[in-house]
C-alpha cells in the first residue's frame, strides 16, 4: 500500500455510498410512496386510498398537458380515478391496473417510461451517465492531484530579492511569525482586524 492509498479511501467510500444510495432509493421511492400514509387504514370501500393515490400519480391525464390524473381536475381524469379505485377494490394489483390503462390508451398514459423494451433506454442512459460522471470525476481529481506538497511558486528572482516584499506582506496581514509557533495562544481569526491598522509608511522601498 502506498502512502496515498488512505487518502483515496474517503472519496471511494463516498462514491460507493452515493451508488448504494442510488440503488436503495430507486427501490425505496416506489416502496415509500406505497407506504406513504398507510398508517391510515383504507376506506370502508375496501381499498387502500394511499395506494390509489400513488397509482393516480403514475397515470397521465389524456387530455390535459403534462398533468397526472392525480392533479387534473377534468372529467376524464375524475373517471380514471374512479376506475382505479374500482379495480383496487376488486382486488386488482397495481401492475394490472397500469396494464389496463396502457391497453386502453397506449404507453404514453404512464407518467414514467416502462422499464422494458426500447424504453429501458430512458432508465439506462441516466444510470450510465451518472456512473460515467463519477468515474471521470474521480480520474480528474486524481490526475489533478500533485504528488506531495507543491514547492513555492517558482520565484523569478532569488529569495533575497523577495525579502522586503515578504516583510511587507507580513506587516500587511499583521502576521507574527512568533505567534505561528504557539497554536491557540491567541486567536488567529482576530488578526484580520488587527491588520486593518495601517502599516508604517516606509513599507516598500521600491514603490513608485
Amino acid at each position, binding site marked *: 500500500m502506498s502512502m496515498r492509498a488512505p487518502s483515496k479511501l474517503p472519496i471511494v467510500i463516498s462514491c460507493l455510498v452515493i451508488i448504494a444510495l442510488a440503488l436503495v432509493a430507486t427501490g425505496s421511492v416506489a416502496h415509500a410512496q406505497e407506504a406513504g400514509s398507510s398508517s391510515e387504514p383504507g376506506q370502508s370501500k375496501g381499498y387502500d386510498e394511499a395506494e390509489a393515490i400513488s397509482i393516480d400519480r403514475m397515470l397521465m391525464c389524456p387530455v390535459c398537458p403534462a398533468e397526472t390524473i392525480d392533479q387534473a381536475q377534468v372529467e376524464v381524469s375524475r373517471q380514471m380515478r374512479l376506475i382505479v379505485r374500482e379495480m383496487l377494490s376488486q382486488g386488482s394489483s397495481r401492475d394490472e391496473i397500469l396494464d389496463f390503462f396502457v391497453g386502453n390508451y397506449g404507453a404514453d398514459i404512464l407518467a414514467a417510461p416502462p422499464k422494458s423494451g426500447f424504453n429501458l433506454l430512458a432508465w439506462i442512459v441516466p444510470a450510465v451517465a451518472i456512473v460515467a460522471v463519477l468515474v471521470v470525476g474521480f480520474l480528474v481529481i486524481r490526475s489533478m492531484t500533485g504528488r506531495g*506538497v*507543491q514547492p*513555492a*511558486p517558482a*520565484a*523569478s*528572482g532569488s529569495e533575497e*530579492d*523577495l525579502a522586503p*516584499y*515578504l516583510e*511587507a*506582506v*507580513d506587516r*500587511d*496581514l499583521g*502576521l507574527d511569525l512568533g505567534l*505561528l509557533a504557539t*497554536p491557540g495562544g491567541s*486567536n*488567529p*481569526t482576530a*488578526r*484580520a482586524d488587527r491588520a486593518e491598522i495601517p502599516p508604517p509608511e516606509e513599507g*516598500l522601498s*521600491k*514603490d*513608485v
Partner: protein
Amino acid sequence: MLDAIIVLIGALLAIFSVAVLTYPLVRSRSRGQPEMLEAAGEEGLSELDSIYESIRTLQLEYGLGKVGEDMYRQHMNDYRLRAATALRRRDEKQTDAALLLEQQVLLARAAIVDADGSPADSSGPCPSCGGALDQNAAECPKCAAKPGFSGPDLQ
C-alpha cells in the same frame, strides 16, 4: 396632433442618440494611458487580494481547528511567498507602466514644442538642480531628475 408629438419625440430620441454617439468620434482624444497605469496596478491587486483572502481563510480554519499546526505553517509560508512574489511583480509592472507613460508624455511635449516652433525650455536649466539640460533628454544628466515631472505627480 398626438401623432405629430409622438413622431417628434421619436425623432428627438434618434437625433439625441446620433449626437451622443458621434461626439466621441468627432472629438478625438486619447485617455488610454492613465487607465493603462491603473489597470496594471489593479491587476496585481486582485491577485494579491485573493492570496490575502486565502491567508485569512487559513487563519480562520486554523482557529476553528480544521487545519493542523504543521499544515498551517506550511501553507502560510507558501502563501506568504506567493504574496511577496505577486507584490514584486506588481511593482515591476507599475514601474514599467509609469516609465512608458513618462516617455509618452515627453514625446507629446516634444511634439508640442515642435509645433509651436518656439522651443520654450529647450536646453534650459534643469528645474531641479539648475544644470544644463538637453531638449530631448529623458532625465537630467547631473541629478537624474525628470524634466516636466517636478510636480507632485510622478516623482
